[in-house]
């Protein structure tokens, strides 16, 4: 057997040598972070996405059983929550009409499957099987049942690429739901996200829910982002670091929704004019 393998290697040694060198060169290229490599990476993500999409027609029986069980349990919890929210909504409508506040617009959602994921890098992205044909546009938020996933950064006709919260370039205007403390949320390569620009004196405690704030140019207010895991005073500063555990479990992300939300252009115009 070994002899046969050796004979095969000897017979095709030129091809083994060139394959080895090409592999090493490609590996070296992937370590670079130049714009060219980023573009090639995007192409490869789409290509892998197409392949995964093609093979996804074969369902995994055990995965489906587990998923069904999880969905049934979630369905029960959500049914209960919907009933309570309905009550809350009715109360909200009554109170809003009493105060004369404007009703918030509802958003449409486009269901999408995650066909490729890139969660090992500094700039983690996901590829979704929806694109401009499905009315997806750049900067539209991506969410799932747990909360905010990220936003769309590149759109093709049938696929788009989303920047996840675990992306060093993404900043999200966020606030603590209980105390309404605002901050800027970012990922700095740690296991958790960090809410920045929060003064030490502000009331933030572990367990507080963090949601998107209406200051954000990309996300509507109120999308759940995560839960405060820890607060630490920053030495020599008036601010505290607030570690936030994301609500979304990125490694197991499979289905998401693209929110058909783009900021009102008149608001953008007004804000830019004021600068």
């Amino acid at each position, binding site marked *: 057997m070994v002899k046969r393998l050796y004979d095969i290697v000897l017979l095709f040694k*030129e091809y083994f040598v*060139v394959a080895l060198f090409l592999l090493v*060169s490609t590996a*070296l*290229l992937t370590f*670079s972070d130049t714009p*060219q490599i*980023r*573009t*090639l990476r995007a192409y490869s993500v789409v290509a892998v996405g197409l392949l995964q999409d093609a093979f996804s027609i074969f369902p995994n029986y055990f995965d489906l059983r587990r998923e069904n069980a999880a969905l049934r349990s979630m369905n029960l919890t959500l049914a209960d929550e919907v009933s309570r929210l309905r009550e809350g909504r009715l109360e909200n409508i009554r109170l809003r009409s009493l105060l004369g506040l404007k009703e918030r617009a509802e958003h449409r959602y486009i269901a999408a499957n995650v066909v490729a994921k890139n969660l090992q890098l500094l700039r983690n992205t996901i590829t979704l099987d929806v694109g401009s044909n499905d009315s997806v546009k750049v900067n539209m938020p991506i969410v799932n049942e747990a909360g905010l996933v990220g936003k769309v950064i590149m759109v093709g006709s049938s696929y788009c690429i989303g920047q996840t919260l675990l992306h060093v370039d993404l900043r999200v205007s966020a606030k603590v739901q209980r105390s309404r403390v605002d901050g800027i949320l970012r990922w700095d390569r740690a296991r958790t996200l960090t809410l920045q620009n929060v003064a030490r004196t502000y009331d933030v405690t572990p367990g507080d829910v963090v949601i998107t704030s209406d200051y954000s140019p990309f996300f509507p207010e109120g999308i759940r982002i995560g839960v405060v895991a820890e607060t630490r005073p920053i030495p020599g500063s008036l601010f505290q670091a607030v570690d936030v555990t994301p609500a979304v479990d990125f490694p197991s992300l499979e289905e998401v929704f693209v929110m058909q939300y783009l900021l009102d252009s008149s608001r953008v115009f007004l804000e830019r004019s004021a600068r």
Partner: protein
Amino acid sequence: MRKVLPDIGFSLLVLLVQTGVVRFLSIGGIVPDLVLLWVVAMAIRRGQIPATTAGFLLGLAQDILSGDGMLGLSALTKTLAGFIAGYFYNENKTLQTMGSYRILLIAGLVSLVHDGLYFLLFLQGSGISWSGSLLDYGVPTTVYTLAVALIPMFAFARKQLA
């Protein structure tokens, strides 16, 4: 080993000339690719595996010395160049190939493939036309490299006659 040491020495010399001296021979920003020419010569004289290895190592050295941020690009393109040129290796016709127009045809073909692939990867995401770059830089570089290839071609032709 006796065969390999001069090749290693000459490879280092070619690398030094390419990175340090060749820019003084620039015509309108175009310089000959001596490293590629040497890889082609290696392929014709020594065969596919030595040429592929030389292409990879010299390309990698060029990537490190140039420091343009795309480590591995020249290594990849020169590995392929050495591999393709290796198909023209014929143990019994080394002198004839080196001393005739065939070396120009092989070097021209390999240079065009090399530059084509190089620009294809290097221009990704830049919005610059690949075909335009190949015409503006790739083809002139190939022509200049072939002009330089005339020197070893005539030298080997004379050796053949002698």
